[in-house]
């Protein structure tokens, strides 16, 4: 089922055309790698999808219904969650407080509404445990965690709060090899829960490890959509670098349908 569909999306900033005629789809249970060189328009496209910038032209559909976002909150309400590389967590706060930030569990004490810290500690620990992250203590400050642990918590949080579309902005760029493995594991886990994942990265190897499909942007326009099984790493690298579509891909391919 198609979760998210963009038709002929354009975005201008004054005279500068950041995006032009972008068609884009995302299905549930699909990992889509969004690729492109710096300045290709990846970030702008993500900001259109997450409601940060309204598109200058074109239509967006979520589960076949037209959507128009006035703020990032509108996108969140539909279950479009984004995990930013550095901006995800508040280092000085505990794991549990970060996990429930803005969505704190509360209890009534007389007429007062107070945070239920005990419920948040156990809730965060069990939600993290569900996707295989075992933490020592939910009250521990995030400042003491490694980059991979932080990224995992941000992903787990997005998964826990019923996200339908998970957008990961360069989730592995600052991680060690071992941590990258784990984070890629969580991305696969999200796919298995039926979530549509948009995965932005510069690392083509990671794309080939987990992604089903790739959408490649160059200079604000879409180069193309390719199932991963139909392309090689060299093809993708060439297209990311703006060398156009390699000739052998222009021949219609019998297994053009999406890999399952």
């Amino acid at each position, binding site marked *: 089922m198609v979760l998210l569909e963009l038709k002929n999306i354009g975005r201008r900033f004054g005279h500068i055309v950041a995006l032009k005629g972008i068609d884009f789809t995302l299905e549930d249970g699909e990992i889509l790698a969004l690729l492109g060189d710096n300045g290709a328009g990846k970030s702008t496209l993500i900001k259109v999808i997450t409601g940060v910038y309204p598109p200058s032209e074109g239509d967006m559909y979520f589960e076949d219904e037209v959507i128009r976002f006035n703020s*990032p*909150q509108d996108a*969140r309400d539909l279950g479009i969650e*984004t995990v*930013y590389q550095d*901006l*995800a*967590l*508040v*280092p*000085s*706060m505990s794991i549990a*407080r970060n996990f429930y*930030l*803005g*969505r*704190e569990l*509360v*209890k*009534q*004490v*007389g*007429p*007062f*509404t*107070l*945070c239920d*810290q*005990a419920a948040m500690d156990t809730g965060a620990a069990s939600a993290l445990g569900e996707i295989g992250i075992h933490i020592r203590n939910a009250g521990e*400050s995030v*400042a*003491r965690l490694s980059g991979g642990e932080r990224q995992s918590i941000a992903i787990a949080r997005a998964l826990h709060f019923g996200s339908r579309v998970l957008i990961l902005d360069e989730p592995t760029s600052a991680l060690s090899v071992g941590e990258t493995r784990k984070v890629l594991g969580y991305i696969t886990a999200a796919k298995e829960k039926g979530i549509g994942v948009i995965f932005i990265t510069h690392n083509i190897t990671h794309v080939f490890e987990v992604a089903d499909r790739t959408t490649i942007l160059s200079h604000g326009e879409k180069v193309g959509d390719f199932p991963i099984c139909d392309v090689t790493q060299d093809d993708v690298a060439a297209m990311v670098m703006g060398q156009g579509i390699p000739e052998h891909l222009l021949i219609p391919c019998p297994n053009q349908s999406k890999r399952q």
Partner: protein
Amino acid sequence: MKPYDAIRTRLARSPEAGAAAGFSVIFLVFALATPDTFLSHSAISSILNSQAVPGILAIGITLLMISGEFDLSVGSILGVSSLAFLYATVNGVPVLLAATIGLIVGCVLGLINGLLLVSTGIPSFIITLGTMLAYRAIPLTAISGGRIIRYADYSRESPVLEVPGLLVFVFSLALFFLVLWTARDIWRARNQSIKSKILVAAALLFVAYLVTGALIPHPLMSVKIDFFDALNGRIGTGNYRTSILWWIGLTSVFAIVLSQTRFGNAVFATGGNAQAARLQGIHIDRVRVTNFVISGFLAALAGIIQVARLKSVDPLRGTGLELEVIAAVVIGGTLLTGGYGSLIGSAIGTALTGMLRTGLVLMHVPSNAFRGAIGAIMIAAVVINNFVRKER
């Protein structure tokens, strides 16, 4: 883990631990150096009485600093609000209304700070430096020629607040049920310690005692409250003043707000990582403006409490207070960079600066050396806090 590391980790988890340790050491030094004078009721009450006003200001400064902002204008807001309150009172405005006017003035001046911050994006240090000077111009121009407005020049009697008996009755009853309701929920809560249950029982008994004491002997009789004594009068016949109770009460209320509510969480998040907080749906500008209004309100309240004792206002009231309060908050373990701090720490820091001032006088150290001592202790506190914070 080595015991030394364990202690360090424990210390690092509570921002106020460093201040509490420093407080204990300095207390011991003074107690040993001048045991007869320092450990007397007159010395201790003088420390607490003088620190109640900066202590109340410190609450607002701490909230702001945790959310990553700064307020240099509290001393000026205190001056303007004190003037508004006393000016209204001596001109025949009922005292409760005059106090409300003073508090509203404080809130509005705080609101101006906050709106300037979120609309211009200029650092709050610069904005409140500007409003500190601008707000100070109000009493300087309104009270011409360095005059002092004295309550005694207008009236011989303290303003009295007469509360109708029915209102006392309704208020006591409402308070009684509020405590009962809260106590029931705390009692029922899961995994509560015996300690908190005993606290609840004690609070219940206390309120029952107050209500029976207030209602049964004089049912529906009106009560006369001396307004100045209620805010800052002597407790009983001792030297301790009611302003200490206001300081402790307000600190407790805001400590609960900061550590137990969603708003408190938003304050920590805004100061810790504003972008992450915003992406999680927290209205960071609203948090900042609210904190500036709270800070303005508390500055006004502290000013009115101070007027209740001094019974006068001069144009320079509150000048220089902001720096002393900021020093106390920093000594209390709150980070200037935001995201980390504690109101209990600020209260300890405020008490520490007051203790230092009185203690040095008792040791016959020239009073001007006090500033040097505060400066040295503040820098030492930051160095120590940075050291333990690595283990947080």
